[in-house]
């Protein structure tokens, strides 16, 4: 294994070298399109004159505000937007080879005495590659919270699973952990957040620019175990080097419920073909308050930063990045007399180093090829309140990938393929007896699209091998025979969209996913106080295989859009840590959680829609509901017999609910826009979870109200945005089913949040 480790960087350099050798520079044009709307009314503006200075080309918007330029040579351009009665806009864009850049322009009328603002520009995806959901701009600012999971929890299909405010993880369609891949700028996070509910996700939301949720075939670019999808947090994505202009953002926020504050600063410094980016953030919060009082040991402190240096010559891009993330946070006391009555303190730190090289047109049939390598050093320690270190975990992970985009061929479009390899070195110490292990992964994938007129399809397949090698082989009565395990399988998906009319289409996705067990799932053995459990792995686990189908109808018009989706996932050998209801042999004060693979089914529906009731009043709503059932379960003891020394656990057929499944969720937002001011009433509704999992309790339905106000001030070079948000306006006492400490502590009470962001 060590040989593979040493060879990876050399292999990477070799690939880059070969790529550079084959690099050529034939000119391939890009395109630019977009739309222009009125800042006051939100309506499209027709007959806006658009002028590209460098090319001396011009166009006008159509009646619906749209415009388009085709065949623009790659490069940076200044584009002027002019119309009588409106302030002029000068926008710098970068056109990339064979790419379509999308501009969304909002123009303000002169009488407002403000310069117009440019909301956003980004590379356009093909419709099939478009994220299922996206959070950015105003929505992102108003939902900004302490963690990534809390920030996105109100999006359709999403929920938040937490064990105190800091270690929160998103749940998508009832699935989390290793089934929901979290990425930052397309790269894995390299933390241990998938292995236990008390391990934090090492992504700081305040430095995020945009959050995308990807589902379907596109997810296979990132892994075989992405059944519920991929959440990709874009931190400083595809920043263009416009006119050597220094840009940046400053953010600052405060929330009353935990006296928490956070601030962040980022700077983008382009100099000719070079681009330097740096950001940093600091977050601190005290214990959180609910209507019932304060929850001790829920404070947190997080420092996060990143630098990037990029060289962008005509033939491609070379970049190097380094990032740091440190966090000290508390886990609140156990819900009952389990393990730690005063809570656990966790200290974690993560360093990431990465490089990437992208080469345009290395061959006639290749659009571009990208190589990337990253190394993450992650370490965290868990301290009981006595100051004793209960556990420590170290994970060094490395990933090497090569992704290629090919020219269209016959009926195949947007063809991409890639190679990916990963290595993880895992060590555990303290009270846990989990055997230190190494994990290597190798994968290859292909993605392409077909366009048959009204019918469009995207398809992908990925084959992956994962080998886990313990550094010590032994037989354990609880875990089994600890030895090397190797898993090879494939995942495949196809998505078809059929346009019933210009605005109305039908979509179906079929997916076959595969998830190999991880190191801790196989070999864990020991008390894990923050998760209130004595965790026991299963060295004989088989991989999890999933067969899913999803269908939906979608309607998109200017004043009305909605989507309704239904899905059904059959999971053979669903891997999870099951509460046996039995006490640990070693620690009778903790329940034994046994890793098992049991057949399960998850099915559900989702709805989201937006309707412009008037020019200024917009109604947005979302609804999601799912049911997750085990088809079989384990029996760990004979309740009629006090002596279970000879009892052998066995499987029985069942229809019991999966643990930690979110109940019915609905959101209603009503937004009223007046000039630079936006007022939103928010209602968040959850149904009663009347189908709790084994040893779980039912949670009651609730409705909480909120209010959001955003005001912006736009100048010639500055944009100030101020957001005031009140959550749980009526100070309701309610409990979320996915909160692991809900029995001892309800959700936070009334929370007044203030968030300021300056774009310069």
């Amino acid at each position, binding site marked *: 294994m060590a040989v593979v480790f040493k060879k990876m960087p050399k292999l990477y350099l070799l690939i880059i070298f070969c790529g550079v050798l084959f690099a050529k520079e034939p000119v391939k044009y890009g395109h630019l399109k977009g739309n222009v709307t009125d800042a006051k009314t939100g309506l499209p503006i027709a007959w806006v004159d658009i002028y590209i200075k460098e090319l001396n080309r011009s166009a006008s918007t159509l009646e619906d505000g749209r415009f388009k330029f085709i065949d623009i040579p790659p490069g940076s351009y200044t584009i002027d937007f002019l119309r009588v009665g409106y302030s002029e806009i000068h926008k710098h864009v970068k056109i990339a080879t064979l790419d379509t850049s999308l501009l969304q322009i909002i123009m303000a009328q002169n009488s407002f005495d403000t310069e117009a603002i440019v909301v956003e520009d980004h590379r356009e995806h093909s419709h099939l590659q478009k994220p299922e959901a996206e959070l950015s701009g105003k929505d992102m600012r108003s939902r900004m919270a302490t963690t990534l999971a809390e920030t996105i929890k109100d999006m359709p299909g999403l929920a938040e699973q937490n064990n105190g405010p800091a270690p929160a993880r998103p749940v998508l369609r009832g699935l989390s952990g290793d089934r929901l891949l979290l990425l930052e700028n397309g790269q894995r996070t390299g933390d241990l957040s998938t292995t236990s509910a008390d391990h934090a996700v090492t992504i700081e939301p305040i430095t995020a620019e945009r959050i995308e949720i990807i589902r379907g075939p596109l997810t296979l670019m990132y892994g075989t175990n992405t059944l519920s999808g991929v959440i990709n947090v874009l931190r400083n994505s595809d920043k263009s080097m416009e006119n050597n202009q220094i840009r940046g953002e400053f953010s600052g926020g405060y929330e009353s419920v935990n006296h928490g504050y956070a601030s962040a600063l980022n700077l983008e410094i382009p*100099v*000719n073909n*070079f681009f330097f980016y740096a950001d940093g953030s600091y977050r601190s919060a005290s214990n959180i308050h609910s209507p019932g009082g304060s929850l001790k040991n829920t404070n947190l402190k997080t420092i996060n930063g990143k630098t990037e*240096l990029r*060289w962008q010559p005509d033939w491609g891009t070379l970049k*190097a*990045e*380094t990032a740091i993330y440190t966090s000290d946070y508390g886990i609140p006391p156990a819900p009952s007399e389990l393990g730690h009555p005063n809570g656990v303190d966790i200290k974690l*730190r993560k*360093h990431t*180093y990465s*490089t990437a090289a992208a080469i345009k047109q290395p061959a006639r049939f290749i659009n571009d090829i990208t190589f990337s390598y990253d*190394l993450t*050093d992650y*370490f965290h320690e868990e301290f*009981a309140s*006595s*100051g*004793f*270190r*209960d556990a*420590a*975990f*170290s994970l*060094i992970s490395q990933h090497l990938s090569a992704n290629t985009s090919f020219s269209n061929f016959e009926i195949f479009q947007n063809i991409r393929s890639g190679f990916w390899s990963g290595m993880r070195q895992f*060590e*555990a*110490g*303290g*009270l846990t*007896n989990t055997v*230190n292990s190494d994990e290597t992964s190798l994968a290859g994938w292909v993605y392409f699209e077909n366009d048959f007129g009204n019918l469009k399809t995207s398809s992908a397949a990925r084959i992956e091998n994962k080998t886990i090698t313990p550094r010590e082989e032994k037989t354990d*009565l609880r875990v089994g025979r600890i030895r090397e395990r190797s898993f090879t399988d494939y995942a495949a998906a196809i998505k078809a969209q059929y346009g019933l009319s210009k605005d109305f289409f039908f979509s179906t996705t079929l997916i076959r996913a595969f998830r190999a067990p991880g190191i801790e799932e196989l070999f864990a053995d020991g008390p894990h106080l923050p998760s209130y459990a004595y965790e026991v792995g299963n060295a004989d686990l088989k991989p999890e295989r999933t067969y899913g189908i999803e269908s939906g109808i979608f309607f998109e018009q200017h004043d009305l859009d909605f989507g309704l989706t239904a899905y059904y996932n059959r999971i053979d050998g669903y891997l999870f840590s099951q509460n046996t209801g*039995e*006490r640990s*042999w*070693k*620690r*009778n*004060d*903790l329940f034994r959680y046994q890793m098992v693979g049991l057949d399960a089914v998850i099915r559900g529906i989702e709805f989201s829609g937006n309707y412009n009731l008037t020019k200024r009043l917009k109604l947005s709503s979302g609804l999601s509901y799912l049911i997750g059932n085990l088809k079989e379960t384990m029996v760990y*003891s004979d309740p009629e017999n*006090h*002596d*279970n*020394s000879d*009892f052998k656990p066995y499987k029985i057929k069942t229809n019991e609910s999966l643990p930690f499944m979110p109940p019915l969720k609905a959101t209603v937002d009503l937004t009223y826009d007046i000039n630079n001011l936006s007022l939103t009433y928010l209602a968040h509704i959850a149904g009663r979870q009347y189908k709790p999992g084994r040893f779980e309790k039912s949670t009651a339905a609730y409705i909480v109200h909120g209010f959001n106000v955003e005001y912006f001030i736009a100048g010639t070079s500055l944009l100030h945005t101020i957001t005031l948000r009140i959550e749980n306006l009526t100070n309701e006492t309610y409990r979320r089913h996915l909160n692991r400490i809900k029995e001892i502590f309800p959700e936070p009470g009334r929370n007044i949040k203030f968030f300021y962001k300056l774009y310069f």
Partner: protein
Amino acid sequence: MKNLLINSIILLTLASFLTNCSDSSVDSHSDHADAVGLRIVSSGVTIVSYIRDSAVDGVIEAQAGESSGHMDVEFYDDENDSWFIPEEDHFTLLIEIGDTTIADYWQHEGEEGGFEFHILGKKAGNTQAVFTIIHDDHPDFVSKEIPLIVSDGSSI
């Protein structure tokens, strides 16, 4: 700017190597007491025992107003299939009595924390005792609840 780029890449590469040499230690698996069962021995006779999932066999008995005889606590190691008493240099015994108005425990002077004890019956009734091996400052083993019965002296 090019020099800056080259220097940054060199620094990043160096940092990568340094990362591999980081001094973060998990201090893997120090010698914990690997116990999955317990027995209590009095005058050479096992009065209470259990292993893993088996039921607790036996009870601790005492009389109200009197001290019991000397009792030793031993633990079962399933890897070596043997009973052992942890070394007192690093391990101590913690005894928690459910209702200390019924009974309490005591140890000879100088033997506090050792793996032997006496029960002092206070009044007639039933309660339970939990035995914990403390390894330095954390529990390595927490026993099941062991029944403890204190009888009225006059009824015996």
